[in-house]
């Protein structure tokens, strides 16, 4: 994809330099397809990466879900519903597919706000309002409840939640 903007490019360079300085391992090119939890079922132990058919667990203490929204495929949908494919986090949406959009082309479309609800610590919440996992946070386009295109708030939401989720995850280690 094309670069977002000069400040975006500079921020990206700063981030990657900081990650290198901290000795962080970076891996991309293979999708996350699942996860494993501790016996309590509440703490994530690893995410499963599909490396061309080999499923390899990646262990960590804290996890941040930043897989993007509907276009980026962090949120998926089919005829039966809307879902978050990696952790199956709760994504609020109507059971009636015809309620996902508005008749008015420029109206308020529910699909535009599809995503995972989070608490003040950026932790994804279940339908009952509890945290999905004790060590999972979300950032960026995967977060629901905002219509970033209409609000022109995409960078703001991404920067603010990325910063907050990253800080909190770091402090929890």
């Amino acid at each position: 994809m094309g670069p977002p903007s000069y400040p975006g490019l500079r921020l990206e360079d700063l981030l990657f330099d900081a990650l290198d300085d901290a000795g962080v391992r970076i891996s991309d090119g293979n999708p996350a397809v699942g996860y494993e939890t501790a016996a309590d079922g509440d703490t994530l132990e690893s995410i499963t990466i599909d490396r061309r058919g080999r499923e390899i667990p990646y262990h960590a203490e804290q996890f941040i879900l930043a897989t993007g929204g509907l276009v980026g495929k962090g949120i998926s949908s089919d005829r039966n519903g809307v879902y978050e494919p990696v952790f199956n986090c709760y994504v609020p949406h109507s059971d009636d597919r015809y309620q996902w959009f508005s008749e008015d082309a420029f109206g308020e479309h529910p699909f535009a706000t599809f995503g995972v609800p989070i608490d003040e610590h950026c932790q994804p919440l279940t339908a009952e309002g509890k945290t999905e996992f004790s060590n999972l946070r979300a950032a960026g386009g995967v977060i629901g409840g905002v219509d970033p295109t209409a609000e022109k708030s995409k960078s703001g939401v991404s920067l603010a939640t990325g910063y907050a989720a990253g800080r909190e995850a770091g402090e929890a280690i």
Partner: protein
Amino acid sequence: MSDAESPSSFDPTAQSFEPVSVFPDAEDMDLRPGADNCYKCTACDTSCPVAEVDDEFPGPKFQGPEQWRLKRKSDEAVDDSIMSCSNCMRCDNACPSSVPLSQMHNTARAEYVDEEMDKLSREYLRNRTLANYRTLASVGSKVPRLTNFVMGNSIVQKINEKILGITAEREFPDFATETFRQWWNKRGGPKVRSEEKRVAYFHGCYSNYNTPEVGKAMVRVFESFGYEVVVPKQGCSGTPMFANGMLADAKREAGITVDNFSGLIDEGYDVIASCTSCSMSLKQEYPELFSMDGIEDLSIHTYEAMEYLRIHEDLEGAIADASVEEQAFAYHAPCHARNQGLDRQAVELFRDLDGVVIEDVGDSCSGISGTYGWKEEKYETSMKIGEEMFGHMEHSTGNVGMTECPTCSMQMEHGTGYDIKHPLQLLEEALVE
């Protein structure tokens, strides 16, 4: 165990397959879901190194989903621009919708070669010769010193360019005076036996004929971790054949690989490659392009060497305790390593190795893409793509290059004059007594 035998006496130039009738396979392949998943975001086009320097090249989105749709309507011939795709496969990674772009390109290229290309043309003969590099190498390496002398002769290079269309700008890689397999046989095969930790090594052509030191390093490093290493009979992985639209040749080689490795997988061996294009071919292109018994199983049991050790051993721990003489490397991640998610592994591992400075020279393509940069008419494009990498290499601290890919290493050496090492060679230096 037949792991100490030399490669089969099989002659790849023998016409056991009729090249004209290869394509029904691809017709059976259902590429519609791939085409339908494309919503034309153009991420693939912006990732294409050829399109970046060649304004005539229509890019991966056209070569894949658009051309596929065009051909549904009427019996359009595949556009000849497919031969300008270098098969770097970056578009696969760029696509957010899992469109199998390289699979579509490989099948379109095979159809073009099959139906549009004159089988007596210089281009076809040249491409077939380059794609079957292993055949050339197996003959040339019988008399390595003579071959090196002849191929290094500038008059021979001129003739190659004029007659065959192989660029005279590049120096042919030297053949080793002893192939990896000769060394392996002389050594008497495996030094370590194990029931639990066992791997079968796919060395490919280049570490057998040209850089046996890479193959030796693989064996020594794995044995130092207690692995039994076996070296089954093998041909070429098929990589240069995909890139030249020679699917029948590739299928023949895939058959040889599957035949010789499947039984070992059943006995608990995993398959290890030291060349990232070989591992890419076994992992992805085989199951995408051919249906054979055991081909899926082979795919999911194949790993690149360092990838495997990072998963199964405490490689970080071993490296943290080791040290080597002071040296600095300019590392380039091959496109095919990038596609397997392996582009960071050498840098992340060796930055913790005492004595070593290693820098990533950026995410550009080296431009050679196997046989691509050897073609007279592609040489200039290849060097234009490589410019960014050459510049970054020259600006890095290191004066030795490092990469996993044999042809990237040729390009790195050609563009900068640096010596190039494989990560396994540094692992060997650090970990093997």
